């Protein structure tokens, strides 16, 4: 219901914007209204989605999710056991199965906790598809940092970037932070409620980061981009209005 009111407010604001083309003050007010309502809409939508997700996960679904987590964790752990042990006689494999079940029982809610219910296979496929891009990015950044370090003048220009990410879940924040840190020249200093603090070695590195290409890739891999962001819609509509 709240969303409906806010959407109406946005429509109203658009109307004012279109009509009052020559009155500067009204335009500004309308724009402000638009921004505020857009912000509230995205927040309300996010909260509503969260509430829905929590309501969905009740009773049978909760236990099914726990079972799915248990089985997935078990297979991951058993693969890890085979990797460590490399003994394929019945005795050691049985020990491995018992140990994997024990650990999966102890911490089945840790490994896959809070991961969105995206299709696991799609995520894996997208990860392998995106891996070459990440590797090439790291390779290029390596060359750039080597150039900075070896050139006699050392043209470094250290700076702290601060930006708000549009990613939503913990796991994608961590994935983004670790990819930034893995790329030479940039280090994630801190994340405070979706706001990233990144140390960059020079202007070029900082510029490449601020284009948000890495963020988009991670959103794609972890299936976050399937959301339609209200801000994106507004951006598009503004361009559309200008064209008209």
């Amino acid at each position: 219901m709240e969303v409906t009111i806010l959407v109406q407010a946005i429509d109203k604001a658009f109307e004012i914007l279109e009509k009052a083309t020559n009155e500067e003050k009204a335009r500004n007010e309308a724009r402000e209204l638009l921004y505020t309502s857009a912000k509230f809409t995205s927040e309300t939508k996010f909260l509503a989605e969260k509430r829905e997700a929590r309501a969905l996960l009740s009773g049978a679904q909760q236990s099914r999710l726990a079972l799915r987590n248990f089985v997935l964790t078990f297979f991951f752990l058993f693969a890890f056991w085979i990797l460590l042990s490399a003994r394929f006689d019945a005795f050691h494999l049985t020990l491995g199965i018992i140990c994997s079940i024990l650990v999966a029982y102890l911490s089945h809610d840790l490994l896959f906790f809070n991961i969105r219910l995206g299709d696991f296979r799609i995520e894996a496929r997208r990860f392998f598809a995106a891996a070459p891009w990440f590797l090439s990015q790291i390779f290029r950044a390596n060359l750039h940092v080597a150039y900075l370090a070896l050139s006699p003048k050392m043209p470094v220009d250290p700076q702290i970037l601060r930006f708000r990410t549009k990613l939503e879940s913990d796991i994608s924040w961590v994935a983004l932070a670790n990819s930034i840190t893995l790329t030479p020249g940039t280090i994630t200093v801190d994340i405070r409620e979706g706001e990233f603090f990144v140390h960059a070695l020079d202007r070029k590195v900082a510029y490449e980061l601020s284009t948000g290409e890495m963020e988009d890739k991670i959103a794609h891999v972890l299936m976050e981009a399937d959301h339609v962001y209200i801000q994106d819609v507004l951006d598009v509509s503004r361009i559309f209005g200008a064209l008209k």
Partner: protein
Amino acid sequence: MTRATDDIIIRTVARILIPFIQLYALYVIMHGHHSPGGGFQGGVILGASFILYLLTHGLEEAKTRMSEVKATLFSSIGLLIFSGIGLLCLILGSNYLDYGELSTILKVIPAQARSLGILGVEIGVGIGVMAVMFSIFFDISTGGSIPNDGENLGERDE
């Protein structure tokens, strides 16, 4: 009093790592008679995984996973397994912890009985060491202020 860290990277990475640390600990315990490692080392790693959980998720949440009572219980169980196997050998008529004698119960050749016996002892040691490691850290992080102790000692006089 250890509170949960508000650094999301540390929390998430710890959550992903803890199951693998625990499995590695069990691997070290179970392969102690084939490769380096054994009950004590594996137990320490297992205890460290719980300590990592306590450090990253705070005392209150860690209590739901491994409480003081459970730690005491597990340390006793570990000691019971260790000394039980030792005494079983003694009862069967040989020295304390002389696993060769277990072959009469397990119906295997003495060499295999020794292998299984030492595995059992290592499991016992692992459980005991894990529980003791955790309870030492638990006591340090609460600063010795366990509520029940307060009632039994000094507090009433004030």
